[in-house]
């Protein structure tokens, strides 16, 4: 029952917001939102010791299909994802509070409702005990974020909403669901099992490859090329949503799914026999999207392509099918989440405070918005993977994993990509600090409201702290990779 709380609390929060949105003032509503986020994080934390002790708390809801119940089980990977989602919900809720107010957005009640729903469903994905539950929450996540993407309700939002729902739903229904169905048909079970459930039941490498493709491309939330288009398009959403979509809930649910499937459904042994093409595609995604990011002027779009590339790190890590790389991938979920959410917060804060959204307009912002730009710089270092920032650990493991897998070419890919990320992130920092602001900016550029700035400072500090406190996370994950990681 305890593990159900982190899922139920956000859902109840959604309901509460609906009610409060009608009867109470906006401040009460948003206060309640933040409060619930904190409460939720508290309950998630309650589960951590259990998982650390090696327990696997589980909860059985209903036998949806015979042998394929709706069922939750917390294992380290899911625990980690839940921690990320619920932890980042707190700063995001505060940030959204400030941003939405500062921006005079309409339909705030609906916004916060869907927001809470999305968090709940993301945690549902994290705690899923079998494929079908995971799929259910994966879909629920898609639909609950749709109103967020189309929040502005204009023609642009509608178009992006169509692309968003079109790509995510069609891939998940046609490919992911086919994959789920096939696994069920071929193995008769869908429970996540260490070592994989396909191994031993299906030998034909062709079929395994097809299955892998169904999962890898079906999980379009992971934004592998060629199904990445939805992500930049979803940028029309308000920035807190972008932060949520691109750092916490949606994309991480995608890579989490791939990671989880590769560990618990395929198993490393089987995966390593068919993983060549997937690694190649992930590598192509990394380089391609990094290059695209270099060319973009719109800050949010640049960050979006950066996200695509960073997600492919995780997919590549999962595809390399060895414990070290997988550990790196899992760590990267956390590191990237914290770093990227900071960047998006900053982008939003710049938009609120300076009404700028293009990189080319950001000259000299560092002096007007010191806090924001400082946080931006720290987070950029973390994304690039410099010490002493959290990002360095995940890259370290990923590179080690590439070596372990004997794939030097992918080690090079990681390196190259780090260089590219310097290329697309550092110019922003440089512009902000070393260029003179244009004259007419002088009056109306100022720091965003404190409710926007505080969260981004916290997350920026978080990405530093993660460098020093990465080992508890490693401890948490170790049981999955028993023996593989020293």
């Amino acid at each position, binding site marked *: 029952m305890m593990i159900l709380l982190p899922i139920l609390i956000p859902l109840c929060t959604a309901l509460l917001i609906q009610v409060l949105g009608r009867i109470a003032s906006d401040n009460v509503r948003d206060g309640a939102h933040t409060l619930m986020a904190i409460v939720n994080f508290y309950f998630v934390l309650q589960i951590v010791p259990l998982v650390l002790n090696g327990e696997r708390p589980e909860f059985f*809801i*209903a*036998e*949806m*299909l*015979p042998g394929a119940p*709706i069922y939750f089980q917390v294992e380290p990977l899911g625990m980690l994802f839940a921690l990320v989602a619920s932890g980042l919900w707190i700063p995001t809720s505060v940030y959204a509070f400030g941003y939405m107010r500062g921006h005079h957005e309409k339909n705030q009640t609906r916004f916060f409702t869907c927001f809470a729903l999305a968090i709940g469903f993301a945690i549902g994905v994290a705690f899923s005990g079998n494929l*079908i539950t995971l*799929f*259910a929450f994966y*879909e*629920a996540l898609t*639909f609950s974020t749709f*109103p967020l993407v*189309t929040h502005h*309700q204009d023609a642009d*939002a*509608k178009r992006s*909403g*169509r692309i968003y*729902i079109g790509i995510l*739903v*069609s891939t998940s*229904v*046609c490919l992911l*669901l*086919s994959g789920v*169905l*096939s696994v*069920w*048909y071929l193995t008769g079970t869908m429970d996540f099992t260490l070592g994989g459930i396909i191994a031993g039941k299906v030998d034909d490498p062709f079929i395994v490859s097809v299955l892998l493709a169904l999962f890898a491309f079906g999980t379009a939330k992971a934004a592998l090329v060629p199904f990445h288009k939805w992500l930049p398009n979803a940028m029309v959403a308000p920035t807190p949503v972008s932060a949520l979509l691109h750092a916490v809930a949606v994309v991480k649910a995608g890579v989490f799914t791939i990671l989880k499937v590769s560990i618990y459904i395929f198993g490393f042994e089987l995966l390593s026999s068919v993983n060549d093409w997937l690694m190649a595609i992930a590598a192509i995604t990394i380089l391609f999207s990094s290059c695209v990011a270099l060319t973009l002027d719109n800050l949010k779009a640049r960050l979006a392509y950066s996200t695509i590339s960073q997600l492919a790190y995780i997919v590549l890590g999962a595809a390399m099918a060895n414990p070290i790389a997988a550990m790196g991938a899992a760590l990267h979920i956390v590191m990237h989440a914290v770093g990227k959410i900071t960047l998006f917060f900053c982008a939003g804060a710049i938009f609120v405070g300076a009404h700028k959204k293009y990189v080319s307009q950001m000259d000299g912002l560092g002096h007007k918005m010191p806090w924001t730009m400082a946080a931006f710089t720290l987070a950029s270092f973390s994304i690039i993977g410099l010490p002493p920032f959290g990002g360095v650990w995940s890259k370290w493991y990923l590179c080690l994993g590439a070596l372990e897998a004997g794939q030097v070419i992918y080690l090079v890919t990681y390196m190259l990509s780090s260089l590219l990320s310097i290329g697309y992130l550092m110019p922003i920092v440089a512009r902000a600090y070393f260029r003179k602001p244009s004259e007419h900016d002088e009056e109306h550029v100022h720091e965003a409201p404190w409710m926007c700035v505080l969260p981004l400072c916290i997350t920026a500090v978080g990405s530093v702290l993660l460098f020093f406190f990465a080992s508890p996370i490693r401890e948490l994950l170790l049981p999955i990779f028993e023996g593989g990681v020293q």
Partner: protein
Amino acid sequence: MSNIIEHLPVLQIVVPLVAAPTIVLFRNSTLSWILAVLASWFCLFGSITMLNQINGGGEIPTYLIGGWDPHVGIVYQVDIANAFILTLLSGISAVVFVYARTSVRDEIPEAKHHYFYAALLLCFTGLMGMAITGDAFNIFVFLEISSLSGYALIAMGRNPKALTAAYRYLIMGTLGGTFILLGIGFLYMMTGTLNLEELSHAVPHYAETSVVRAAFAFITVGTCIKLALFPLHMWLPNCYTYAPSVVSAFLSATATKVSFYVLLRAMFMLFGAALIAQAKIFLSFVIFLALIGIFMGSLKAIGQDDVKRLLAYSSIAQIGYMVLGLSLDNADGLTGAIIHLFNHALTKGGLFLVMGCFMYRLNSTKIKDLAGIGKKMPLTMLAFTIGGLSLIGVPLTAGFISKWYLAMGALQAGMWWLLVLILLASLLAVVYIFRVLEAAYFGTPEKEHDVEEAPFSLLFPTYVLIGSTIFFGIWTEPMLGAARKSAELFLSSGGAL
């Protein structure tokens, strides 16, 4: 009447059948409504009791009407499939009849209320009768009752086109009924019995005769007309579009479902599963028709301006799914067909009830009139959204369960391409549902209309049906179990060859 349980099978029919003339006798709107609701609730209670008993491993003793032996008189032999379909029918009616009060007051002139309720109850009786009976000719008799009242009910729509629609349905329906009668007559000619149980033993012995083949053709085509399988679907869209809201909801959730049940029973129990299994070419042809139905229905639905008509075309597609499941001829496919029958009834019934709410407030169900309605009638629109998701087959809704089983059926039959087609077709559902959602939530109304949320008396029943699509998407056990058992029953039936 020492033991009411003992007589439950026949009371399922007799109670609504007696309620209908009583309503005509008293000629009072409120009383009519109360009687109709009570009758449907009684039936719901009865069918759930029977379903529970059978699901629990028990049996319902054969009910001999008139005390005559099965070969002489008419018997009710309630098995799991009967009980399942009865529960569905009475469940839907129990909700829709409650809803009817407000909607009918709005759409039907006061002086005709008692006739309307009588016709509704008669239609219900007819459908229940078809579902429960163990006698071939009796099916036809009750088919007549349900069809006749159905035509009249559809014609009661406010739009004058309702009359034409009902007339077309009458022509097609009569053709279908006649075919069914001819088929039954042929079977009786060859076997000398009308009892379904006896027929199922006798018919396979004459499987090679031209008479039985002709009977098979007639019964199949006849039920397919009533079922609105492509290409015999032409009557359906107009009927559902122009009929009064209550009637659309009631008929869409029940009439085609019962026809499908009759088709199942006829194919598997009358002609025998073994015989069906041999008819591979026939089955492939049916798969082909079902697929065209699915895609044609979905594509047509995308292009509609009126949501009721959109839902009607979607019904044609969903019927395609059911028939597809049937023609896969394996346990999973058949289970999928049967559970889809149930789930789709809930979903589509619920969606048409939502349409009734719009009719009540807006007097229209055109997409352009629904623009921006998500703000004005949030609860109604939420119901539509949930129903729409179930129609698409999103997990945690009932629609997902049926799609799952159909897909598994396709896999079991070794048809991977079919799996892909089924999943692709669900995407079309995404398109037509989202068209409505987009208009309702993001559209701007042409003229600012002063609309309130639908009244509680309409919303509550709507939410019962819509809520059940979620309930049965998660707690699937009772209904899924019954569907599986029915499928096994069908597949194992048919006399020895």
